[in-house]
């Protein structure tokens, strides 16, 4: 066991850590969604209940936000895959 021991590789996050990080991410995302949609949809403070218009806005905002999150996530994956491809091509061209 020493500095040059090949078995001593960083293990990366455990299954539990990954699950925890995912929970944290969902919680963060949910909070941001609530904050954004509230500031966009609920403007009038003359009553203490949501109006019909505000309720519709809430529903649409939630759906849009969640769909947007998916769209953004997928696009990021696409771009990253393209970048990996480009980097691999460049390495090939440079030769061994």
């Amino acid at each position, binding site marked *: 066991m020493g500095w040059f021991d090949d078995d001593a590789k960083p293990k990366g996050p455990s299954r539990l850590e990954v699950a925890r990080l995912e929970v944290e991410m969902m919680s963060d995302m949910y909070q941001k969604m609530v904050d954004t949609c509230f500031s966009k949809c609920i403007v009038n403070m003359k*009553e203490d209940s949501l109006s019909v218009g505000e309720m519709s806005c809430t529903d649409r905002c939630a759906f849009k936000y969640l769909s947007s999150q998916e769209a953004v996530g997928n696009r990021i994956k696409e771009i990253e895959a393209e970048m990996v491809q480009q980097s691999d091509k460049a390495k090939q061209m440079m030769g061994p």
Partner: protein
Amino acid sequence: MDLNALSEREKLELMEYLDNIQVHDSNRNFCEIVNQCFEKCSYKFKTKNIENKEALCLQNCAAKFTKFNIRMNHRFEEYQRERHSEITEQTKT
């Protein structure tokens, strides 16, 4: 992330973590309500005390935000359920 891949002990740890996160979230939620409602309701600073109009606005805002949050929660869960069933449908075909 397939939660069934976790062991019983790991699931328990995750549940504990969820409980902790809920306390964290409710604190954070409170701060956010205060912030949003202050932004929407208090925009004049003629005096240091809350004026009647502002007080009413804050009351309504707090009530609205709480109801809004509950509605958001339902929509969020709905969406997750729909997506989950869509994904399971896709993996079947």
